């Protein structure tokens, strides 16, 4: 049994929402965050994001495919999971998940199809036998590569991105809503919660792309484009500042109001969450990357490319950790405090094995990268043919690189 300091309601000593519920917003955060990056190019025409736009979309897709797994793994009766979609109870915030998830999945699959349609056709033409049949099915039987058809593709991509961006934001803002709308828990109950979740999703998505972009470039023996890296660093800095500001504001308001829950929340932060909140979320994952990124953004022209990339990568890795600790502190932290507002339970330690264990969480984090690798093998994440005369890699370059790894 966990140790209790103060008084907790006797049923409040169990951590009902385990590590899987920490993984769930972390993973959907990547879905939304990388979609924001791809939208910056496809929707808002930010050319500097062109080199990462496809990678971002593929990343969003790869994470989306496993986004519902942690929820499913967490359920006490997993075989009844589909009833959330079949017989949803609409007053529940959770009932919206099925609808939002499927809607976004449809939009993203369509968008991926339009973006990669040329590659699918090319590959269908190049290959033969079963492989050809496979790509022919993917191409849905249409091999139209006329300029008019490509123009239609572009328009479709734009429209889908226009629907996809709000859908991605809803999908993740809604995760914040699940917590923010629980009036029973003062650590969760704030209208800021969906906003904080959304902003930190952008942070995690961009940070992941900073790292992924360099890994992919290295594996594919392609240069890392300075413009794309600076742009990613700049937007990462921007979203990180917003996130940390709101996360602090939430606390400051609570403290200044001297709300009834502040006494126990201040104890929660200064004892149980001291390391994961103060050290990881705020200092190592917040303050330090803000400084590093400030150097990258403000002193961009004085920095050697290698220094800039290294600083950005270090900052990005810290940001990834910051977002994870933020998810942890919200989901787990909220359950360490009893609704009696008089007591805290001892820190939660997830099990190692089992459905909701650490190994499963690691497997869940690896899975999207396996999907990404498969995506690259099947469709090729980077463009096969250079558009606009840029120094693009040889067809299948990235794929070979990944294979070599």
């Amino acid at each position, binding site marked *: 049994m966990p140790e209790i300091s103060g008084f907790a309601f*006797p049923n409040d000593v169990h951590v009902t929402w385990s590590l899987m519920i920490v993984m769930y917003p972390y993973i959907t955060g990547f879905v939304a965050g990388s979609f924001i990056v791809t939208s910056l190019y496809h929707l808002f025409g930010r050319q500097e994001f062109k080199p990462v736009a496809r990678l971002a979309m593929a990343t969003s897709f790869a994470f989306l495919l496993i986004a519902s797994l942690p929820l499913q793994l967490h359920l006490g009766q997993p075989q009844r999971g589909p009833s959330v979609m079949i017989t949803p109870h609409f007053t529940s915030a*959770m009932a919206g998940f099925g609808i939002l998830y499927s809607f976004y999945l449809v939009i993203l699959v369509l968008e991926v199809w339009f973006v990669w349609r040329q590659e699918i056709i090319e590959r269908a033409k190049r290959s033969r036998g079963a492989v050809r049949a496979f790509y022919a099915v993917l191409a849905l039987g249409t091999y139209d590569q006329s300029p008019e058809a490509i123009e239609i593709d572009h328009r479709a991509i734009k429209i889908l991105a226009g629907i996809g961006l709000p859908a991605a934001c809803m999908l993740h803002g809604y995760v914040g809503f699940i917590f923010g709308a629980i*009036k*029973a828990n003062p650590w969760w109950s704030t209208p800021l919660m969906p906003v904080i979740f959304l902003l930190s999703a952008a942070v995690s998505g961009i940070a992941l792309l900073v790292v992924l972009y360099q890994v992919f470039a290295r594996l594919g023996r392609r240069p890392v484009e300075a413009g794309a890296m600076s742009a990613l660093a700049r937007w990462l800095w921007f979203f990180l500042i917003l996130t940390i500001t709101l996360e602090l504001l939430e606390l400051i308001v609570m403290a200044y109001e001297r709300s009834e829950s502040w006494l126990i929340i201040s104890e929660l932060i200064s004892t149980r969450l001291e390391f994961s909140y103060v050290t990881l979320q705020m200092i190592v994952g917040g303050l330090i990357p803000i400084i590093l990124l400030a150097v990258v953004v403000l002193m961009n022209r004085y920095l050697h490319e290698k220094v800039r990339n290294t600083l950005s990568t270090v900052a990005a890795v810290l940001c990834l950790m910051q977002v994870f600790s933020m998810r942890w502190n919200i989901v787990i932290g909220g359950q360490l405090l009893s*609704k*009696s507002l008089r007591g805290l339970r001892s820190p939660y330690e997830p099990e190692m094995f089992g459905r909701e264990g650490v190994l499963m969480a690691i497997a869940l984090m690896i899975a999207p990268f396996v999907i990404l690798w498969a995506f690259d093998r099947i469709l090729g994440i980077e463009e096969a043919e250079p558009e606009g005369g840029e120094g693009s890699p040889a067809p299948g370059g990235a794929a070979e690189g990944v294979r070599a790894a």
Partner: protein
Amino acid sequence: MEPKRDPAQSAGVEPAQAAEQGAATRREFLATTLKLSGGAVVFLMGAGVAADGAGRAGDAKGEAYNWEEHLYAYLVDTSKCIGCGSCVRACKAENQVPDGFYRTWIERYVVGMEDTHVDSPEGGLNGFPPIQVGFVTTKSFFVPKICNHCRKTPCTQVCPVGASYRTKDGAILVDGDRCIGCGYCVQACPYGSRFLHPATHTASKCTWCYHRITKGLKPACVTVCPTGTRQFGDLKDENDPVRLAIEHDRVSILQGHLLTEPQCYYLELDKEVR
């Protein structure tokens, strides 16, 4: 949305079903005996008991119960509680509540001008051992807790599949055959009344002993309370003592600011109690 379930069936999904059927047979037997022996038993046991027994006999067949004719409420007079823990033990036995989880519990408050100490060792299951506190105690009392069966309850609101619902007679129940075990209702309950059952992996909570009250009995905790701290009544009965108390006395509810409209009312509630 109003639930369209048969209340008897709802009661049937509770784990106590098997035990209850045995008890029902016993009760039927007793009821028949009462009817057959007629006047002699009335003479021996007093008219009040006989009337009560006859009421039960009618309901025990499960035909007469109409959930639209009742609206239940619970009343706790905290000044009477002696912290004996009988209610917690009775609840555990009646509903097979797993170890370490509680459908009802008792809190002990030891209050002074400087500090307050609150505890609930094992939910009060084995009563309360003597306690030393490091401040001058000016008052001390016990507060029994139970699901508040709120009218505007967040727990049924957040259930993604509608497995948690409010019956027409006012009880909040969980359909164990529909619950997916997501735990959202556990998070949403401000009173800590719910838990995920470690064996069934579905949400579990106080049902006001729905299998008993639909047969005209009181919840187990009320039946065993030796001091009358815990009372259970029907708001649709104008002469019900619980209804009269809620109507005419100064009653409190827990965490009223959350506007969940609890149907568990308290007399003599102290400010320290949340």
